[in-house]
């Protein structure tokens, strides 16, 4: 029944439903990173993501470790539950956390950057771009944010994302297209000239 390599989700669910704690722990370890990352990217808060992750698995326990298999496999189902919980949180919270706008390009000081070590500058700039991208994703409307996170950060197909969201594939495709255009517009002021130059051998930073 149980594979020698790794037990399937179904086998773990079956064992966990009979009270097998190690099976449930394995199930949790297998799926919590994706749920947590999804929630972090949607909420922008690690504390909120921890709450969402907890609520998702408690909901699974409350359903006696069963789920509607018509909505896909367990991973898709859990992501769908996480999405609903996040949306419910946004609706319930009267005071939303205001996401700060992206920093203005003028605030960057290229002269100060030139004084740094080029390799260090490349690392910092890469990290800055990751931060910028995260903030840009967070600044998207939720319906666009979720498709970007699902399709481009979690690597889901349009069909899988549609199953998580509960909409048509065409809707996911159009939202993703629109979301990427919005991200491009938000990130366009932050050009990549500095990192490109320093990667080039003999690149001039002065």
């Amino acid at each position, binding site marked *: 029944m149980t594979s020698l390599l790794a037990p399937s989700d179904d086998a773990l669910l079956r064992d*966990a*439903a*009979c*009270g097998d*704690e190690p099976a*449930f*722990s394995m199930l*949790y*370890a297998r799926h*919590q*990173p994706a*749920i*947590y*990352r999804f929630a*972090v*990217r949607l909420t922008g808060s*690690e504390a909120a*993501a*921890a*709450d969402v*992750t*907890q*609520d998702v*698995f*408690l*909901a699974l*326990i*409350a359903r*006696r*470790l069963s789920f509607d298999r018509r909505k896909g496999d367990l991973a898709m189902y859990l992501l769908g*539950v996480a999405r609903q*919980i996040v949306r419910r949180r946004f609706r319930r919270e009267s005071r939303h956390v205001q996401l700060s706008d992206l920093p203005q390009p003028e605030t960057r000081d290229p002269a100060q950057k030139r004084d740094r070590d080029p390799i260090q500058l490349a690392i910092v700039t*890469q990290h800055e*771009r*990751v931060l*910028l*991208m*995260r903030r840009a*994703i967070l600044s998207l409307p939720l319906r666009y944010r979720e498709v*970007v996170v699902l399709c*481009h*950060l979690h*690597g889901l197909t349009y069909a899988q994302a549609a199953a998580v969201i509960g909409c048509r594939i065409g809707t996911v495709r159009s939202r993703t297209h629109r979301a*990427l255009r919005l*991200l*491009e517009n938000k*990130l*366009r002021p932050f050009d*990549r000239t500095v990192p490109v130059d320093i990667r080039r051998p003999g690149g001039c930073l002065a």
Partner: protein
Amino acid sequence: MIDQCSDDLREDLAAVRSEDASVGAPPTVEAAIIDGFRAARLSGAMQSAPRRICSTLAIAAVTAAIVGGLAYGQRHTQRPRMPRPTDQRERFVLLPGATLDASTDEQIVIEITVPRTVLMSLGLAPSGSQSQVASQVMVGQDGIARAIRVLRSE
């Protein structure tokens, strides 16, 4: 220009994905969930396989008896309707270590919201999936909580 932007975008998204690869929920979340799992197991929400088979058979037997009883009742006299069993949510559950002495201690009841994990650790299994559940707590004159009951799911 759009293609160039798409490449940049793809690269930045890949960088975010790469940095996120090792991110996971903090250990406190797992501890709370395992507590919830144990509480559900203790409250009977989960059963071992043999017990589940036995309970299935028992439910089938009870169902057959009820159906038979109803058929018998319809043929004979109109039987009085049995009162509904008390819902678990309507009963106060004594908190661990608390004693309830109605003759010497005057109690007050306050309404609060309690984290689901706390209720599950007490052996209560509130319906729904909300993290906060409206509950009533019975508090003694000394300010110590004696018992709790779930009101409803928000």
